[in-house]
């Protein structure tokens, strides 16, 4: 199978956000495989199929998120050692450590860092096409620039506004906007599939009921009954709810995905809270 | 109708093997019948056939009706007894068998309670019933199992080796108990045992199995050195003394 694409650089990305950006940066010179288009598959039962392992063992560049989000990647890489393979761990590029919010792609500052690093790696491997990669990098950076710009705009307007969420998916973006995120312990418990403590549930409910927050962010891919209940509490209290997704929805690129969510958040924050 | 059990040309095949064939017999109502036969002769199988648990050819009738599963006229004490739930009381065990085959829940009722009391009293086990099963001796447990067979006024008891692991005194007590119940209520009893001596005084008749056949005979006719030796294919001596009969297999010849 190495006839037509023999020149192409093989890239395997653990998550599809990174994979799509890699495709954009490398164009026809790369061949991209994304492992998790659905990172919410049960990590307990997540099992890599042979075709992915095969792709990985032939890959030139491997992209992983790191800080515990894709811990199986280490084993897969070690299993098919390849001296000439480079591994980009986005968390390392962005200087994050274990314990930080792993949903890194929601940080508008991280994506350009990743894009530059990957582009440099592509140029290193394929110096002949360095100019092509430089052009692609420029295009890509300008294509994703609106996300950071929009976040900065919103920061000017909403910095310090208290919000809450059922899961820390949107956390990095909220930080970029300067929103005062509350109930982080609750969110962490939901992320880890464990049970939120009673006081965390109570704090969450109180925030919603007493309008101590202006917005509830939920994971719209997860529809477990606990989250539904909070959405109901919010609705009753007149606190608006915005759903975000953990993975890049198919048919949308990164910019459209992020802007869509930012718009929804802005619109929600602008609604006047009804008097109790 | 004075026939408790009637076999007409009954055959039993299990696992491709003929256990019994062409058995014809009639057991009178109210008779105390000892069931004899070597290991594997088919004593347990015969009782299970009467209970409708084993497919048979020919016809088995109980009190004039075809034998079917769950016949309320029959009380049964199985030979192989699953380990009992040790922490429950004897009364719970006995009560579980009361209408145990009927769907639904057994709500506490005075009538049910009276019925359980009645059978416990019949075997003299009222005092045992409150104790936990794992605190009871083997003989005491066997008495509770006998009480169970009496629930619902059966007209026929099938007791499969109820003397196992009892000492001579308890064996005698068990036989006497069964005999008393049988006579007081005029019911028929099939009582299997390898130990003939404790039984002999109580028997009206003997049902002996061997070699795929089953036949009924009087005690006098069957309990003879000759016929028992043939039955068990081993030298067995029967001695009559003071109007009593003793059976003993000869260990010196072997």
């Amino acid at each position, binding site marked *: 199978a190495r006839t037509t694409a023999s020149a192409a650089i093989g890239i395997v990305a653990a998550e599809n956000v990174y994979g799509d950006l890699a495709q954009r940066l490398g164009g026809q010179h790369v061949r991209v495989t994304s492992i998790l288009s659905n990172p919410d598959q049960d990590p307990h039962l997540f099992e890599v199929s042979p075709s992915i392992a095969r792709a990985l063992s032939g890959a030139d560049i491997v992209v992983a998120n790191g800080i515990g989000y894709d811990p199986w990647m280490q084993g897969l890489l070690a299993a098919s050692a390849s001296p000439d393979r480079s591994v980009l761990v986005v968390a390392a590029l962005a200087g994050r450590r274990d314990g930080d919010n792993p949903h890194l792609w929601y940080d508008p500052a991280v994506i350009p860092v990743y894009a530059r690093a990957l582009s440099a790696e592509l140029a290193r491997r394929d110096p002949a096409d360095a100019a092509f990669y430089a052009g692609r990098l420029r295009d890509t950076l300008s294509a994703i620039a609106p996300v950071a710009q929009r976040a900065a705009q919103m920061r000017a307007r909403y910095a310090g506004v208290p919000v809450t969420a059922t899961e820390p998916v949107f956390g990095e973006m909220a930080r970029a906007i300067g929103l005062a995120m509350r109930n982080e312990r609750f969110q962490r418990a939901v992320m880890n599939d464990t*049970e939120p403590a009673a006081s965390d549930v109570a704090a969450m409910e109180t925030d919603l009921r007493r309008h101590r927050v202006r917005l509830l962010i939920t994971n719209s891919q997860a529809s477990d009954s606990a989250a539904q209940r909070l959405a109901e509490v919010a609705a009753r209290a007149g606190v608006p709810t915005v759903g975000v997704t953990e993975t890049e929805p198919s048919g949308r690129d990164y910019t459209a995905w992020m802007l869509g969510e930012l718009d929804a958040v802005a619109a929600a924050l602008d609604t006047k809270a009804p008097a109790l | 109708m004075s026939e408790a059990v009637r076999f007409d040309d009954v055959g039993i095949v299990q696992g491709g093997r003929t256990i019994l064939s062409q058995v014809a017999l009639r057991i009178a109502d109210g008779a105390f019948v000892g069931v004899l036969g070597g290991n594997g002769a088919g004593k347990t199988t015969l009782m299970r056939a009467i209970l409708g648990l084993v497919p048979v050819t020919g016809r088995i009738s109980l009190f004039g009706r075809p034998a079917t599963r769950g016949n309320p006229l029959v009380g049964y004490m199985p030979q192989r007894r699953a380990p009992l739930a040790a922490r429950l009381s004897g009364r719970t065990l006995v009560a579980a068998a009361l209408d145990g085959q009927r769907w639904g829940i057994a709500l506490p009722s005075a009538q049910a309670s009276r019925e359980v009391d009645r059978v416990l009293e019949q075997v003299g086990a009222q005092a045992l019933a409150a104790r936990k099963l794992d605190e009871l001796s083997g003989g005491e447990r066997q008495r509770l199992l006998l009480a169970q067979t009496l629930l619902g006024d059966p007209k026929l008891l099938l007791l499969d080796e109820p003397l196992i692991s009892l000492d001579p005194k308890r064996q005698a007590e068990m036989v006497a108990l069964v005999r008393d119940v049988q006579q007081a209520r005029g019911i028929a009893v099939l009582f299997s045992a390898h130990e003939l001596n404790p039984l002999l005084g109580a028997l009206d008749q003997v049902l002996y199995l061997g070699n795929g056949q089953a036949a009924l005979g009087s005690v006098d006719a069957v309990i003879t050195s000759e016929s028992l030796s043939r039955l068990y294919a081993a030298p067995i001596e029967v001695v009559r003394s003071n109007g009593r009969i003793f059976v003993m297999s000869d260990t010196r010849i072997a």
Partner: protein
Amino acid sequence: MLTGLFSYGFMINAFLAAMAVALVAGPVGYVLVLRQQSFAGHALSHVGFTGATGAVLLGLPPLWGLVAVTLLAGLAMGLLGERVAGRDVAIGLVLAGALGLGLLFLHFFTAYAAQATALLFGNVFGVDRATLLTLAGLGALTLAGLAAIARPLLFASLQPELAEARGVRLRLVSVLFLGLVALATAGCAQIVGVLLVFTLMVGPAATAQRLSPRLGVGVALSAGLALSEAWGGIVCAYATDWPASFWITTLSGAGYLLSFLPGLPGPRRERPPRRPGPGPLPAPSGGSSS
């Protein structure tokens, strides 16, 4: 510390949900422990995962798949392993098969699977009113089913040979019971988590069987213990801010261990009645021979 225990809606829902689960788990667990089928109970709670995943794959509500597949597995276990010997192998193989199938479903998954994954540790503080109603409905259904088969079930559990002779269909009863366990587990697990359901099925029942030799008392005790452990766990969770499942598990284990305390009824020691002694033995005459 405990002020405001009832001032939040979620706390009231938690108490109600725990009650619904405990009142089902207590009696069902009593029979489960009596029949020594804890493994089956546990395995069925896994199997639900496969059902939920499969249903999502087919675009059906996960709860349907969960209940359907768990019921099916309960039937398979009942059919395969009616005899005690080899029963654990039958359960193990059904379990492995179901999990393997679940894995295959996941492989084809494109949608979000968290519904299936959150099963292990549910969230008793996140129960909403609609879920509460589902829970109550499933619980009532399970208890009604249990009541419907109670008599032959108990009989068959205590004395299978005798029950069979008296017309009880052992296999049918066994399969129906595992179906009920499946229903109870499936219903409760997705709301309060597999762990909690299993804990509330096994712990209180085992304790109750140590404490009372009477059936009715035992079942009531089992339900009562389950309820008080569940509620106690919620109160402790509220007071300490640690997870409720942890507390309920701890209370349930502690309850069982406490039942071994000497003062309580039912010590392990056997106390055979001293039978009226025979007279003095005949003096040995003959000494050692040969």
